[in-house]
């Protein structure tokens, strides 16, 4: 229990400005990530879930410093990366890598697969020599389940699943400790999705990797994560052990989110437990006061409209940002 976290985010915020002086509405500030704190322990998978616009991808990019944070600290192996210069970040970049959703867009179409995978090696280990880099590329290709003759081909010759394997191989080239996976399987067909999910699990075991797995698909997140953090409008509303959160959600939003997933099972009547939220996610430009979920919450009270609930730990690993958390059935 006393293993030091690999990554700690403390009160991370990220604001974007949208529009310009010339656009009709003028400049507006979007609080994409709002005061988020989390910890990732070595070897675990933390799932970040939420609907579009909840800030999960932005948070992932802040954690790897692809975006500058607007506030807060990010400690990676006890070093604050939020305030490092680009040059200081370079050695850290080797230890944290990102895999993106769209395997079509994130690979340069004019370069051979071997070159794409070798690129981070050439940038960071120029001293290694061509032969060694080529050997490492073959090793990586094998690791992600591609064939050696794929090295000479171009991205367009591959299917979506294979391209995602290439993206993973590239991310693994520098032997990172942490992979931030941003919707890595959402663009893939169901049958291929399962292959990639399994591949990620195998790699984690073999290479002792730590994952932050960002996805909107709850069943995929449930499958891969040890712990989950549920986001709504830029904040984490609930976090905890995956089994616990899915079995007995404490935040009304988590409950509604899980119940909304259509279940591929005809034996149980899926509609019995369905909680259908009314309305849409409010705009992060002008978020509701108090609890951000109060506009759609079944249990909202007057205090929810004015006081913002903070993420409080209800047990050692569990935390929920709600004034009136749902009771956990003891029998469960």
């Amino acid at each position, binding site marked *: 229990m006393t293993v030091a976290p690999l990554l700690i985010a403390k009160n991370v915020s990220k604001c974007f400005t949208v529009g310009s002086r010339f656009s009709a509405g003028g400049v507006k500030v979007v609080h994409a990530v709002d005061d988020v704190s989390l910890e990732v322990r070595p070897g675990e998978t933390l799932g970040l879930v939420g*609907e*579009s616009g909840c800030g999960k991808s932005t948070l992932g990019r802040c954690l790897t410093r692809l975006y500058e944070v607007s506030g807060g600290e990010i400690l990676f192996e006890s070093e604050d990366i939020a305030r490092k210069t680009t040059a200081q970040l370079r050695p850290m970049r080797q230890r944290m890598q990102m895999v993106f959703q769209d395997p079509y867009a994130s690979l340069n179409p004019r370069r051979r697969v071997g070159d794409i995978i070798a690129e981070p090696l050439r940038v960071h280990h120029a001293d290694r020599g061509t032969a060694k880099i080529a050997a490492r590329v073959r090793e990586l290709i094998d690791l992600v389940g591609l064939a050696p003759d794929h090295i000479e081909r171009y991205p367009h010759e591959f*299917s*979506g*699943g*294979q391209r995602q394997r290439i993206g993973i191989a590239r991310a693994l080239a520098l032997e990172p400790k942490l992979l931030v996976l941003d919707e890595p399987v959402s663009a893939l*067909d*169901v*049958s*291929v*999705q*399962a*292959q990639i*999910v*399994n591949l990620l*699990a195998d790699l984690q075991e073999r290479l002792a990797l730590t994952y932050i797995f960002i996805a*909107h698909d*709850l*069943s*995929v997140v*449930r*499958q891969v994560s040890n712990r989950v953090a549920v986001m709504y409008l830029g904040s984490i509303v609930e976090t905890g052990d995956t*089994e616990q959160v*899915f079995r007995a959600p404490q935040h009304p939003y988590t409950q*509604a*989110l*899980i*119940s*909304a*997933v*259509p*279940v*591929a*099972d*005809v*034996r149980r009547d*899926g*509609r019995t437990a*369905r909680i*259908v*939220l*009314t*309305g*849409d*996610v409010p705009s992060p430009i002008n978020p509701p006061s108090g609890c951000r979920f109060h506009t759609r919450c079944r249990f909202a009270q007057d205090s929810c409209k004015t006081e913002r609930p903070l993420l409080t730990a209800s047990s050692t690993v569990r935390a929920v940002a709600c004034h009136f958390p749902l009771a956990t059935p003891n029998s469960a």
Partner: protein
Amino acid sequence: MADALRNLLEVRDLHVAFRTSRGKVQAISGVSFDVAPGEVLGVVGESGSGKTISLLAVMGLITDPNAEITGSIRFRGKELLGASNKELRSIRGREIAMIFQDPMTSLTPVYTIGWQIAEQVRAHGPETAKQARDRAVELLTAVGLPNPGEAVDRYPHQLSGGMRQRAVIAMALSCNPALLVADEPTTALDVTVQAQILDLLARLRRDFGSAIVFITHDMGVIAEIADRVLVMYAGRVVERANKRDIFLEPRHPYTHALLQSIPPITGDRPRRLKSIAGTPPSLFAMPSGCAFGPRCTSRVAACSAVPGLTGEPAHQAACFVTGMR
């Protein structure tokens, strides 16, 4: 003739091919299915399985001059394939309506949603502009758009994805169509909004009595909404049965594997997901014989030929190994 009365739509032996610079590509091969009045037929398959193209063919919406479409598509006993543009137009939107996947792009950006609904109403009826507008407000109310009197004058970009999809559904329902074709209508939406739209479709099905062909890749959505299911793979129907049989007694190895590869949302988590090896075939490189053969774990020698659908009429599968049951 009894069949023609019982079924709203009868598709028989539909083939769609495209002439391309790399040769002729067979997108759909011998697809047959029926839709009875008021039922929900789920069409499930992965990208490239031909599920969308077969329904676009039904709607007469394949405009590519390089497309070759053969077979028979009968709607209320009337042959649609080869019907004149004018005849098709009078059916499209009035008797068969369609909802598309992406509500962001399926509405014309420069007109209000009220205008776009009124356009459809007036294309098929004698309504005046005023009447058509009132009808639009009425429809927007029916699909649960908040404040419909004001929403009718909104442009698509002023609405959220869920609201836009409601507007598209309102438009589709404007002429009380007997058949609604919904092509992945919830795929682009968030899961809580998807739940709203699925509820809405279930309610509208009761209120309007339209039959629905629901195209999706999501078995969960199928379990939720369909009565009968058509499973497609590589341009062919590989299994068709009622929903219960598809989920509880799948016969085709593909259906079986597809169900296995979905991570469960409740219950125990499997240590590993059962995945299907390989990838769906490209239209340019179709395997000979059973298209699923190269990925199939039950493959036998007979699979080098193309299997036809076999089994009792209520549950058929195209597989030499398991289809004969």
